[in-house]
């Protein structure tokens, strides 16, 4: 990397992400043991307090910091050192996010914000918890400003050239994030903060839930797109092959951008106050992401097959034998990719209108997001970490570190398959998510879930061992031998063809996105605004 300050910027984001992951992991381990009936929490610590900490630290803090750090590093690799102003905006954003995170975690530890990471109204946390969330979100908007300004500068100085694929994807990811976070910013600034300070008496619960889920679903694509960036742009280079098609990669990204926002109602299918027609409209829009998902799957396996055949693989599946399974930089994301196949199938069930009733708010859902974000996305990020930290610190990825990465792949995927598998099964039997250990007064139905909950705890313990391996690896990475480690960026395959100019612009795609959002939300949202009674605040913990 060129600028020292740029490397430091990216590195600090990554390190904060892993501190959050380690703390969130401790919370996760304890939760698993409590739910499994194996321990009780000492010192008056509440189960739901831990659950809030786990959700906020893993889903919001780990992901956002890692993603932004990864994107900065890739922007520097593909567009050159960050402009001074860009670097400054980026540091300001980082500091805001750190202050927000620390403030939020303190409030959770003080038991002033035991509202879980979804903070559903009319439960009221301390107003400072909502202010902490605003700091994290506004800090992340600085990253949008930084990445977009850097890319604009590159385009000005490289007239007539197509922007680097990694930079295009980074900007698309941050634009998606911005459009999505407008919803959560609106509910926090216009509803929660005035209401929690007592400036207004009541909150419109359906509006706040709808704005949250307007944000909550694209949030998962904000996690997924950077993992896809690794798959599309980086993995082909790591295996020694070439990217299958740049145009299809770009098309997939713009399709994810337009189809991931106007879909929040599929998280609200079991709720009153939304007509079945609008629920169905958003279910249809939800499923349109199937198209870019199929494109991504095709591209990945086409890349692998082309590489295998170039190495002399024979037969229909001979190329599978040629892949570098001994390379942790490949194996971690690859196993994540394989587990995304059943994970995606589970997602189809969740969003299936009527079928959602079978799984809604059961442990199935917890199993689902652990096999998606905590497996596919997290394992891809872990794989990136093994070369990105040495790249940023001027060190090398050694054989010993590679062995740590392979060990991590085995432990993490095993722990997740056990834990998430048990969650999926017991969820189908109706065991609720987000619930402390309970037998419901020894009801036979609840007693029949206990064995699965013990299996979940065992999976959780294995995952915690994974976290220890990960933390040890990061310490080893920071102390690895000096040298240089490449930021891998693949070339495009010679048969891929040229990229149409419309796939290097956002204007038209943002217009389509806004139109879809207006179609999906205007009528049901106006209905909610125009009717209903507000709720006063409740503190029930």
């Amino acid at each position, binding site marked *: 990397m060129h600028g020292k300050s740029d490397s430091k910027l990216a590195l600090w984001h990554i390190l904060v992400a892993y501190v959050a992951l380690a703390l969130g992991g401790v919370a996760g381990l304890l939760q698993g043991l409590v739910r499994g009936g194996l321990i009780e929490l000492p010192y008056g610590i*509440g189960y739901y307090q831990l659950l809030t900490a786990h959700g906020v630290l893993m889903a919001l803090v780990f992901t956002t910091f890692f993603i932004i750090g990864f994107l900065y590093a890739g922007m520097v690799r593909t567009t050159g050192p960050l402009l001074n102003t860009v670097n400054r905006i980026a540091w300001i954003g980082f500091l805001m996010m750190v202050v927000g995170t620390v403030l939020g975690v303190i409030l959770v530890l003080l038991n002033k914000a035991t509202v879980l990471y979804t903070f559903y109204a009319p439960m009221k946390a301390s107003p400072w918890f909502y202010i902490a969330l605003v700091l994290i979100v506004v800090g992340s908007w600085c990253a949008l400003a930084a990445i977009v300004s850097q890319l604009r500068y590159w385009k000005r100085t490289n007239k007539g050239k197509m922007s680097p694929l990694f930079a295009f994807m980074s900007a698309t990811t941050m634009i998606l994030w911005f459009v999505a976070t407008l919803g959560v910013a609106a509910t926090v600034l216009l509803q929660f903060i005035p209401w929690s300070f007592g400036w207004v008496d009541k909150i419109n619960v359906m509006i706040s839930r709808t704005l949250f889920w307007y944000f909550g679903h694209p949030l998962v694509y904000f996690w997924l797109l950077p993992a896809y960036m690794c798959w599309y742009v980086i993995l082909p280079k790591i295996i020694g092959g070439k990217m299958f098609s740049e145009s299809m990669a770009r098309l997939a990204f713009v399709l994810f951008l337009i189809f991931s926002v106007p879909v929040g109602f599929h998280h609200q299918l079991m709720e*009153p106050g939304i007509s079945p027609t609008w629920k169905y409209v958003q279910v249809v829009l939800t499923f349109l992401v*199937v198209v870019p998902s199929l494109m991504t799957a095709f591209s990945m396996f086409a890349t692998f097959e082309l590489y295998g055949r170039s190495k002399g693989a024979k037969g229909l599946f001979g190329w599978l034998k040629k892949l570098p399974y001994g390379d942790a930089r490949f194996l971690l994301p690859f196993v994540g990719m394989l587990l995304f196949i059943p994970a995606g199938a589970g997602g189809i069930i969740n969003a299936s209108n009527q079928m959602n*009733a079978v799984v809604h*708010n059961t442990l199935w859902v917890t199993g689902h997001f652990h096999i998606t974000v905590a497996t596919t996305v997290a394992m891809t990020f872990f794989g990136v970490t093994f070369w990105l930290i040495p790249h940023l610190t001027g060190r090398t990825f050694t054989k010993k570190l590679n062995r740590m990465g392979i060990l991590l792949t085995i432990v993490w995927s095993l722990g997740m398959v056990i834990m998430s598998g048990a969650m999926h099964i017991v969820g189908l039997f*109706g065991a609720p998510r987000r619930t402390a250990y309970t037998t419901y007064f020894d009801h036979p139905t609840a007693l029949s879930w206990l064995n699965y909950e013990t299996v979940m705890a065992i999976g959780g313990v294995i995952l915690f061992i994974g976290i220890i391996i990960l933390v040890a690896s990061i310490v080893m990475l920071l102390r690895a031998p000096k040298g240089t480690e490449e930021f891998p960026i693949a070339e495009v395959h010679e048969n891929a063809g040229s990229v149409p100019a419309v796939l290097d612009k956002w204007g038209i795609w943002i217009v389509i996105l806004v139109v879809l959002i207006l179609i999906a939300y205007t009528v049901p949202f106006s*209905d909610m605004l125009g009717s209903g009674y507000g709720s006063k605040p409740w503190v029930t913990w």
Partner: protein
Amino acid sequence: MHIHRLEKIWIVIGTLMLVVFLIAVGIGAFVMDDHPPGHSKGIKLDPEKVYETPPFDNPRLEKIGENEYNAYIVAYVYGYSPNNIEIPVGATVHFYVTSADVVHGFAIPGTNVNMMAVPGEVNELTYTFDEPAEYLLLCNEYCGVGHEYMATKIIVKG
């Protein structure tokens, strides 16, 4: 733009399967009237006056026909009113559920009864209990420190 022939076939087949799937879901919803819960005719009520607003001023099981009932249920921290509902086997129950405080869940494991109780709103769902059993009715949305105790029974007598 160049798209590989096999990729075109892959996308077309995938998209066609998706269309068939969405039509099936749509027929289920709009032709067979199998909607997700919640189409409660847009009834709203003041969450601070739940116990003064009919029908929730008197939470109850009300017989409306031959083995057919309306159940008006209030969810609150940490229970349901009325408690322990008894019905004969084969009964069809129309559940009308609201909340007197925060958001709650309303789920009966082993059935497809699963919906949200939101303050200010009335959620609605119909279910026919064909098997005699003591069903567990539980809250599956975090509602506070006693959430894991929030449950009651639906007793279906054979």
